[in-house]
């Protein structure tokens, strides 16, 4: 393994580190270095009202450097950083425990595919808005009859000469009721399946767009049903070729899986390690959890958790060394879902009847969150590609097993 000369010398990188550290020290408000509560995430968008002025201050500072999207090119609002510089930036952000300046499907999913598939006008128009958190995007993918079988989608997009006309229904649109624009898969040819899909963008305030939040078993409503009735969309809003959307869709799904797995799923009451929760609710005898059966299962889970974290790190090191690790995305998605479901179930079990509350004063706030986190986690093996679909992908693309012939 030759140590070829990198694009930057280690001296240059060290300089970047000290400059970055100084800048962060000067520009990250104190409040933005404290732990985040449930509602403290900043998603930006036209209607965003900061909960604290520091949120806006921090977002604007980061956006001014292009550091909400550090590796995007500077001409599109990015920071233009090299991978090494970005690693340093992330290190330094972690060091001061800075909150994310901006959460965004535009950053995680839409931006990367637009960089690859968009035309120059589209990139110029949309990417800087994403980087600055001005426009909040949502994803129009699943439909009632097209979940795992995404390519079975039916939302119709007709060419009306000077515009497209869209009719149909999407479901599981995350935060559609709070989003400004949507990136959307539509059917532009009904005679073929995968080859009849296009990737299109439009404003959620367009006439004919309606959203209806879906109440989940956990009690929350982060998703919507979204209805399109004769929605007119300018022709320049098509990304890539007409009927060429499936390739873009798959690429975007890859970014989605990676971002879900790498970030882990939301933990709910998971701020404390399981074993501390268990010690509190189960009790300890001779230094060991009293329920030895549960203890063994918690230990097995923690080992799985650690093995997963080590594997993420291994994949990162491999990627840095130039290896292709795209085959690992489906594996991470499966493992991350399994792990989060196991964790939230173990917490519920460890808390016994204190995790059986739904609301009210009889339980602490953490006790109320535990079963909701468990319920929420059931979706981890469904959203962003079901575990079944991801196991199919591993079997076929990674292991080379074939379908029935």
């Amino acid at each position, binding site marked *: 393994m030759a140590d070829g000369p990198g694009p930057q010398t280690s001296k240059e990188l060290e300089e970047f580190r000290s400059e970055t550290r100084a800048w962060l020290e000067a520009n990250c408000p104190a409040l933005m270095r404290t732990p985040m509560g449930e509602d403290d995430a900043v998603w930006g968008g036209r209607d965003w009202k900061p909960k604290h002025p520091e949120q806006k201050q921090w977002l604007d500072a980061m956006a001014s450097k292009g550091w909400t999207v550090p590796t995007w090119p500077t001409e599109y609002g990015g920071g233009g950083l090299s991978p090494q510089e970005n690693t340093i930036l992330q290190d330094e952000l972690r060091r001061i425990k800075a909150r994310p300046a901006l959460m965004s499907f535009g950053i995680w999913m839409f931006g990367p595919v637009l960089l690859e598939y968009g035309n120059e006008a589209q990139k110029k128009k949309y990417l800087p808005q994403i980087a600055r958190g001005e426009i909040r995007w949502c994803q129009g993918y699943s439909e009632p009859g097209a979940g795992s079988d995404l390519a079975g989608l039916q939302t119709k997009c007709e060419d009306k000469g000077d515009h497209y006309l869209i009719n149909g229904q999407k479901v*599981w649109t995350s935060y559609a009721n709070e989003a400004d624009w949507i990136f959307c898969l539509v059917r532009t040819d009904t005679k073929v399946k995968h080859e009849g899909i296009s990737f299109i963008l439009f404003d959620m305030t367009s006439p004919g767009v309606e959203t209806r939040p879906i109440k989940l*078993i956990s009690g929350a409503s982060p998703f919507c049903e979204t209805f399109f009735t004769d929605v007119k969309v300018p022709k320049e809003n098509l990304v890539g070729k007409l009927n060429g959307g499936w390739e873009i869709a798959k690429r975007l799904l890859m970014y989605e899986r990676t971002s879900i797995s790498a970030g882990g799923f939301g933990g709910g009451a998971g701020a404390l390690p399981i074993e501390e929760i268990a010690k509190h609710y189960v009790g300890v005898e001779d230094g060991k959890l009293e329920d030895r059966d549960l203890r063994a299962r918690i230990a097995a889970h923690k080992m799985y958790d650690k093995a997963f974290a080590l594997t993420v790190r291994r994949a990162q090191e491999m990627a840095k060394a130039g290896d292709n690790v795209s085959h690992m995305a489906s594996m991470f998605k499966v493992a991350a879902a399994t792990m989060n479901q196991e964790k939230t179930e173990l917490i519920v079990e460890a808390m016994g009847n204190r995790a059986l509350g739904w609301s009210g004063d009889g339980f602490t706030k953490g006790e109320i969150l535990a079963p909701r986190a468990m319920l929420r986690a059931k979706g981890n093996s469904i959203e962003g590609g079901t575990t079944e679909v991801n196991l199919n992908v591993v079997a076929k693309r990674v292991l080379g097993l074939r379908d029935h012939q």
Partner: protein
Amino acid sequence: MFTLTEEHDMLRDAARAFVQEKMPTAHLRAVRESKPDGFDRALWKEMSDLGWAGILIPEEHGGAALGYVGMGLVLEECGRTLAPSPLHSTALVGASALILGGTAAQKAEWLPKIAAGEAVVALAIDESAHHAPEKIKLDAKGRALTGEKKYVADGHVADLLIVAARDGGAVTLFLVPARADGVTITPLKTLDSRGAADIAFNGAKAEPLGGPELVDQVLDRARIGLAAEMLGQATQAFETTSEYLKTRTQFGQLIGSFQALQHRAAKMFVELELTRSCVLAALAALDENRNDVAEHASLAKARAGETLHLVSNEMVQMHGGIGMTDAADPGLYLKRARVAEALYGSASYHRDRYAALNNF
């Protein structure tokens, strides 16, 4: 052991017809929205009029004396639709405690009220987050109770409390009217929408009920009856899911035609059949007055817990996104499952107990 009498068959058919018509899952949704008690008192009266509240109660006290197998069949049918009522706490647990341990006067006072659906009874056992009857501390010196009980099923609506407490050495059961002085009931809003209560006792006057062995006898009946309800839940959750596999299409195919799902469904079927045998055998062991009731109770509760856990998770997963919505049924089964799994001892608790009963 597994053969039902004609009376049992009739009872089950009647229960199924009633529950399916009057208490489908939509009924639970209605109760959740509008009944803070966690059940519908008018329907509970109807159930009592059908004789269910008195299934275990001798005829002399107004009951039908149909035994635990009969009780189990009705609980299973109620489990199928998650029908909320005080049937388990009152007609099974409460009635059992009084029949097994009550004096003639206590029986004469309470059993007719139970059989008529006029008294709701709740058993107050656990004092911490976990089921641990061997650790009960509630003090009953001088027949005055002092201490706390946690998550008492139907404790928020009970007329009569049966309380496990320690009078000097061994733990025994005591009767306390729920509205007696020195009893403070804190209702809980629970995951399964049925409600429960934390209860504090501050010198509440109590009447003793039977001896120390009564605690185990009553708890084992509670476990077996709950296992029967859980069997019904798991069976329905499985059948609803099987039907969905036969109607939902993805990739141009019914999802039930995918072999990976077929094998998972087949494995659930095996688990359900095994669990059914355990539950029926445990109910029969009660009616036959056998000496291995404890072992049967732990077997039935542990296996019902494991099977229901599996099936309720698969129900959500196999329903996909729909399964995550509050508007669909899987969430209701999942929530009740987690409550039932924990009540009267988790699978982990009963594995431990089963090992201890087998001397290892």
